[in-house]
């Protein structure tokens, strides 16, 4: 599997990244190199092996349905670039 320039541009657009011509070139090479290395795994026979859902052998880590204190509003908004009357304020939302 090879990663094309278009693939990199597509993923960059999804991640809202603006790449320069040189960066696009660089990432295409790097991604190909990384994925090429990982492609070694495809040589293994995985017939009958259940897909791994989680890297740590844990399951059912649960908490009881009991309310614990929330944080105060001013703390919640402390790092917000913009806030107004207790709300986070965000710039105009573009839908398309």
């Amino acid at each position, binding site marked *: 599997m090879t990663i094309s320039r278009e693939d990199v541009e597509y993923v960059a657009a999804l991640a809202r990244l603006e790449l320069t011509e040189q960066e696009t070139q660089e990432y295409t090479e790097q991604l190909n190199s990384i994925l090429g290395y990982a492609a070694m795994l495809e040589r293994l026979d995985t017939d009958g092996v259940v897909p791994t859902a989680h890297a740590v052998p844990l399951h059912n880590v649960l908490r009881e349905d009991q309310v614990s204190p929330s*944080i105060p509003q001013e703390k919640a908004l402390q790092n917000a670039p913009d806030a107004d009357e207790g709300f986070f304020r965000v710039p105009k939302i573009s839908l*398309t």
Partner: protein
Amino acid sequence: MAVADKYEMVCGLEVHVELQTKTKIFCGCTTEFGGEQNTHVCPVCLGMPGALPVLNREVVNYAIKAGLALESEIAQFSKFDRKNYFYPDLSKNYQTSQFDLPICIKGGLEIEAEGEKKWIGITRAHMEEDAGKLVHSGETISTSNESSVDYNRAGVPLLEIVSEPDMRTIPEVLAYLEKLVQILEYTEVSDCRLEQGSVRFDVNVSLRPIGATSLGTRTETKNLNSFSSVRRCMEYEIARQARVLDAGENVVQETRTWDEGQGITLTLRSKEEAHDYRYFPEPDLAPLIIDREWVEKIRKTLPELPAARRTRLQALGLSAYDATVITQAKAMADFFDEALASYGDAKTLANWIMGDVTRLLNTNQCRVADSPISAKQLAELLALIDKGTLSGKIAKSVLEEMYSTGKDPSIIVKEKGLAQISDEGALLGIIDSVIAANPQSVEDYRAGKDRAIGFLVGQIMKATKGQANPGLVNQLLKEKLS
């Protein structure tokens, strides 16, 4: 040519239902509705770096319970995934949801629409978190220069129930939604308050020429919150797609939004890449293994579901219609059952509940659960009628008195002296004076005009302010006149 003669509509639905836990799905913040903005939040639901989610056990219990009520299989192994997209109501830039291994698989429910029974399949149901709430500065998103975000709702647990594309008409869709909401309400996994946004609907609609076997291109209209919006939105979307197809054009596969004010749907997201959510397993949450024992424990908590309850009420002598009305809402069915425990005539009981009790509740915009008349008090009132203490007519006014005062019927009867006069001695005196005052009617009756007795009975009832026992009056009067 009408649209329905030319095209067949195919519809599948995604229903998001808010589970009524005390806390959010991955943190201990309260799910309480209302609260000042951004006060039911913590590092987990605000998506602060390093904060770790822990799954709420009750969410899993509710999901299992809903799944069982919807005749689904409960997956032995399920997991959570990240659904990635950018939108300011999402604090983490991804929604924690379930992708390929949901908790409930393959269920369904039976609907009845336009006299036909039909099975509607449910593909899956999965657990996920709700997003925050956006408030726009302008009229709509596109005319707003900025928006405000409240994350109180972010992380409230949802169950998303996905149907098969099995519905072909709007009445089928509405029947499915009503049945689904009814079952969820019965299981008490959600309060199902549509007006508070506890249940929201995404509607997938496509058209295909009659007789075609492959599906047409569909659109998805998101976030409808009432049955009437679903109906209006579908009517609009069917007509719109038919116009596109009639013009020889193709329907664009896209996400649309319903504009309630204008009564139209609008394009929300059309770019292909907006649908690429790049799901991947959530590394911060361990998978879920649900064994038989857990499932059986939850199965034991399932209430009698609407269909079973309806059958039971019909076995008690109720008509199919009456049984359906009584079991429509769980609170009403519970009220009926509670009254039935102390008053055995199911049919009479049903008539009173569906008639006068419902009328009183509706007039006062009161929910059955909040009724000032208890089921026990209603049973007591009906027993008073059967004993002959009250006539049916007076019982109705006693019921109104019960509604406004909350008092027991026996107390109202005593205080107001409403008890029916069943004392022969007292009645005979009144009968004598009515006979004396109406010689013409007496003569008519004796001449064979049976109707004349009705007039005399009416006069006696009037003289006793309606309190005379009508059966006894009839009997005594006939004896007197013969």
